[in-house]
Every structure is written in C-alpha cells, then in structure tokens.
C-alpha cells in the first residue's frame, strides 16, 4: 500500500517524461529511480507495482531499477556525522535524539533508457 502511492507518482512522471522525448522513441526499456532509505521502499514490491501500473501504457514492458541511497545524518549537539540506523534516530556519539538527516529522503526519477528503431530501405 505504501509503495502503491509512490508507484503511482513514479509511473505518472515516467509517462510525462516519455512524451517529452524528441524524437519519440520506439519503446522504453527501463526507468531508474533513486530512493533514500528513509522511505523504506521494498524494491521488489515497487517493481511489481510498476509492472502492474504500466500495463497498456507507453511504458508497458519496461523494467524499473530501484537504487536505494543510505541514510546519513549530522548531530548538531556533538558534531557526529555518519551512517544512520533508519529505525533508531538516536545519535551514536552523544545519545540525544536531535539528528538532522543529510541523505535518505531523496526520491527522484534518475534516468530513462529508450530504444530507437530506424527502418530504412537504403543499403
């Protein structure tokens, strides 16, 4: 259910971007999204939803690559900076809970890979 809402945004964005490609490609091979670990996306689940939602669209048959970025944070109290355990937002340096997220909230469509077919009679 969580992936479904985000999956709808992914497919909507992919289809919009496809329409902007000039010249129009023959088909979409793959789309790649970058997701921060704090979104707690299950890549397999996301790929399944993508497959279902792209049926009968311009993106049908394409695959979805999900690249997960680890969470990093900075502690304003003690200056600790590093990889963060997503479920426990407690500073490993000083044990306070004021960590500021540096990475891990990203959510963007990174790239599309398309195929062109040039059919010509010339030898």
């Amino acid at each position, binding site marked *: *259910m*969580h992936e*479904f*809402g*985000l999956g709808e*945004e*992914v497919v*909507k*964005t992919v289809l919009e*971007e496809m329409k902007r*490609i000039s010249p129009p*490609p023959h088909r979409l*091979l793959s789309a790649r*999204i970058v997701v921060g670990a*704090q*979104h*707690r996306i299950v890549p397999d689940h996301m790929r399944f939803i993508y497959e279902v939602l792209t049926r009968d669209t311009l993106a049908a048959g394409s695959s979805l690559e999900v690249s997960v970025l680890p969470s990093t944070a900075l502690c304003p109290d003690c200056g600790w900076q590093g990889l963060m355990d*997503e*479920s*426990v*937002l*407690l500073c490993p340096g000083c044990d*306070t*809970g*004021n960590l500021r997220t540096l990475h891990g909230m990203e*959510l*963007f*469509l*990174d*790239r*599309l*890979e*398309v*195929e*062109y*077919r*040039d*059919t*010509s009679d010339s*030898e």
Partner: protein
Amino acid sequence: MTQVTRSEIKVYRDLMGANAEWAGRSRQMLERLGIVMINLIGSPGSGKTTLLERTIERLRGCLRIAVLEGDIETTCDAERLNALGVPVSQLLTGGGCHLEAKMIHHALCDLPLSELEMVIVENVGNLVCPAEFDIGELTKVAVLSVTEGEDKPLKYPLLFHEARAVVMTKTDLLPHIPYHLALCLDNLKRVNGTIPVFQISAVTGTGFDAWIDWLNGLSA
C-alpha cells in the same frame, strides 16, 4: 534493414514535485491569511475523530476552526464533526491511503477562509503514507493510542520524526492494560528527542489543557 539503438536520457526529476508545488501554494495562501493548518495522523481507531470533537468543543470559543476530514469511504466522521457547528469538508480518497496536496488545496479554497484562524486536517487512518506526503500544513501531529503497543514509534519512525507533537490517547485505559508507558516515551525520544507528548483521555478530559494551550500557541 532495421537498426536498433539505445539511448539513455537523464531526467533527475523529483517524484514528489507536483505534490510539493500544490503544498507550497496552500502554505503560502494560509500564511498570507494567518491561518494555521494542522495535519493529524494516526492509525485507524487511534481516536483521531474523538480527539477532534473534544478539541473543537474546547477551542471553538476562542479560535475559529474548520475541519478537513479525510477518509477512504463514508461520511460518518464528517457528520459527527458537523454536529459541533464548525465548517467541515469531507474528502473521500476512494481507496487512496493518504491525502494529497492538490486535494487539500481545492478543499481549502471551498472553505470560508477569511473567517478562519485554524484548519485541522484529519488524515486517512494510516501511520505510513500520510507521513510521506506534505499537504501544506504548518505541522504534523501524530496520534497514538495506548492500545497500539509501545513499539509503534520505532516501527513507523518517519511519522514520529516528522511530527511536531504526539497526542497519546485513551490514557484512562492505562490501569487496565499491560502497557509500559515509560518504554513508549523512551521509544518516542529515540526517534525524536525533543517532541512534546500530550497524554490525554477523551473520556475523563485529563491532559486536554496542555494540548489546547499548545494549539493556541501555534495560532498566536
């Protein structure tokens, strides 16, 4: 002869871009009008609507409030709140598990905004997706009942990290259930070190004063 070529197109586009744009539009509009919007998020049955009823009864004398009521189906909650004499607008997501910024923006525009100081949005009962979607609110408030278990802040850290306050409901049940309040408070601290927690009971009225003061403070 058919020649097949592959091409890679860099997009680098924010997937929440459209939602963020609508949220920004609402936020600007509300700021201009001096209206505070609160996004109430909690699981189904955590007591969000009852909390709203008791909150509105206490606030309506001093603050002009409207409610946007998000549900997947039915208008029961809106009917309950309508009885309190404040403007209520029901948003049905028709299966969607959260409210989105565009929906909220249109609903806001249908409210008598010039007569309001506060809009409280009751999001769809869910601890996951509503935390992901900015709807243009000033602050998210998490509603957590004592019957849900002490581990919820750790299981759904994003909400409790994003929220600016937690309302802990149904505290009148504490003497009757094996619930470790201190453990839950510690877990909340682990995901959000500075978050204020209002322990309330809609049955006895306990704890409402501090919560109402906090809400009034947002609007001041």
